[in-house]
């Protein structure tokens, strides 16, 4: 972070610094941020934007073509496709977000705890995490879901537990490393408290890495849930979800109708947007490592 250079004469406010940082972002990263903002807007204000209700059957004709009343036609039960697309944003994104947060909390807590305790407990938890990571995620999720039945809480819990293994590894490694870093040592010699050190020295330094990891895991979870719903074992009807919308309307593809590709493209676009931002953060973080 270059604030150590320009912070000394007159520290600019947090806002100016953030604005300056944004100005250095490449085009792809800025595009990503704008797209994420649009998705967030649609997800939050879905009930006000969507022309019809989420599960409202508005037409007698299933798979109706695009028209003025139903901009993207209707789905297999005669529900408005566009409305379901908009509500789908809300369901898909919020479930993926909740899952990411749970797995982040779980993984980081366990990781730091494991690193602090050390010894046998640390070894036991680490080996268990290794075992969890040695089964392909999708296969594991399919197996567990078929045993416990597929409900949204089960889905969230299983994916959160499996993904938390990544956060566990990172936070454990970070917790082990941080104690030996020079600037932490320096702050400790200055007589700063442990809390002050974690907030002012450690946190800003690991923030880009945490953010990029969060972004990557969000993408991964988001895509996993979409894939599961597409396979028919994820989010169940009548909730609108992009993956299952593709599946339910896939028959249209053989007739040359691109409508079922729209939810799939929406999934892809959000994941691309997040990945563009993550890539920029990672580049910044690795640039820092090379200088320091």
């Amino acid at each position, binding site marked *: 972070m270059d604030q150590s250079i320009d912070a000394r004469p007159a520290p600019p406010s947090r806002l100016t610094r953030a604005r300056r940082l944004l100005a250095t972002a490449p085009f792809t990263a800025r595009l990503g941020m704008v797209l994420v903002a649009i998705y967030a807007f649609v997800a939050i204000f879905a009930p006000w934007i969507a022309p019809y209700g989420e599960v409202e059957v508005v037409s007698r004709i299933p798979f109706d073509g695009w028209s003025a009343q139903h901009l993207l036609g209707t789905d297999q039960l005669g529900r408005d496709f566009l409305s379901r697309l908009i509500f789908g944003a809300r369901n898909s994104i919020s479930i993926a977000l909740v899952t990411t947060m749970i797995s982040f909390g779980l993984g980081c807590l366990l990781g730091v705890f494991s690193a602090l305790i050390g010894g046998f407990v640390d070894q036991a938890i680490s080996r268990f995490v290794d075992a969890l990571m040695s089964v392909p995620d999708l296969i594991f999720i399919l*197996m567990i879901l078929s045993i416990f039945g597929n409900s949204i809480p089960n889905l969230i819990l299983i994916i959160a537990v499996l993904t938390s293994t990544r956060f566990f590894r990172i936070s454990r490694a970070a917790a082990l490393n941080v104690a030996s870093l020079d600037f932490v040592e320096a702050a400790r010699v200055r007589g700063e408290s442990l809390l002050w050190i974690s907030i002012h020295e450690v946190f800003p330094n690991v923030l880009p890495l945490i953010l990029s990891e969060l972004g990557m895991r969000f993408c991964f979870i988001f895509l996993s849930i979409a894939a599961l719903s597409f396979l028919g074992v994820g989010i169940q009807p009548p909730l609108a979800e992009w993956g299952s919308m593709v599946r339910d309307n896939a028959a249209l593809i053989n007739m040359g109708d691109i409508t079922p590709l729209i939810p*799939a493209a929406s999934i892809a676009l959000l994941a691309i947007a997040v990945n563009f931002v993550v890539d920029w953060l990672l580049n910044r973080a690795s640039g820092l490592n090379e200088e320091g």
Partner: protein
Amino acid sequence: MNRTSHPILSMVASRVGLGLLSLLIVSLVIFFSVSLLPGSYASAILGQNATPEAVAALETRLGLDQPAIWRYLSWLAAAATGDLGQSFAGRPVMAVLGPRLLNTITLASITAVIAVPLAITLGVICARFRGRFIDRFLSTSTLASISLPEFFVAYLMMMIFAVKLQWFPSMAGIRNSMDLGEQLYRMVLPILTLLLVILAHMIRNTRAAILSVMSSPYVEMARLKGESEGRVVTRQALPNAIGPIASVVALNLAYLISGVVVIEVVFVYPGVGQAMIDAVRNRDVPVIQACALIFATAYIGFNLLADIVSIVSNPRLLHPR
């Protein structure tokens, strides 16, 4: 000669041992997670209307009255000889999965044979011309395509090549009665989709692996000696990057596994992935267990292979003091 290969042999042996150990742990997880099934296993087979007597009889017949650890050991012993038990539908699991396993292996290995050399070549090109147009183009487009859900790529391929251009059939329902040419013709679209899914990951990781080697002192030394950039990449960086590249390639072959499940469903390809999804929908537990075991074995096998390649290709281990 015999003495020099010793450290490698022992390291390889220890990796194989670790692989077997993780396979054992995975089999434990797969076997015992079924014991968590709400309600008993036998009533799950017989359905809701089964009488208690029928449930008890079936439990005895399946050996469910034995202790769990004993059941696990006999299941494991049978699985090791290729007998994965009976499906709920009453057929031996291996009879259901055997031909499908062959189909999936064909699909995956054709993809791998095309993908690995292509990805390494493109990754090397990216590293050689880093920062130039070709690198920025490939980096950005692969970054975008790792974000695409597999089914999106699959349906896009289907839309373009099967529906619009009508070059290939949209369904890849191959049968044994078809000759090889016909089977391959039907497999083109699934293979193309799988390729697109894993190539992006592989190219990015190969590029990163070579670039991390490029920042090491001996590469700097070669540059200072005045070697051309192409020579530096292919003669100095690449041999040392084989280990990391092998491990990322193997990890990405693991993406094949989740890719295979989705793509088999999209193209109605008769493979293990589709069998697993069908079994999950019918909650046919023995089939699910068998599929999970097959996929986990493949995954662990890929990782083991990567470990061994990176040990064997490590120049420092080839010339022990």
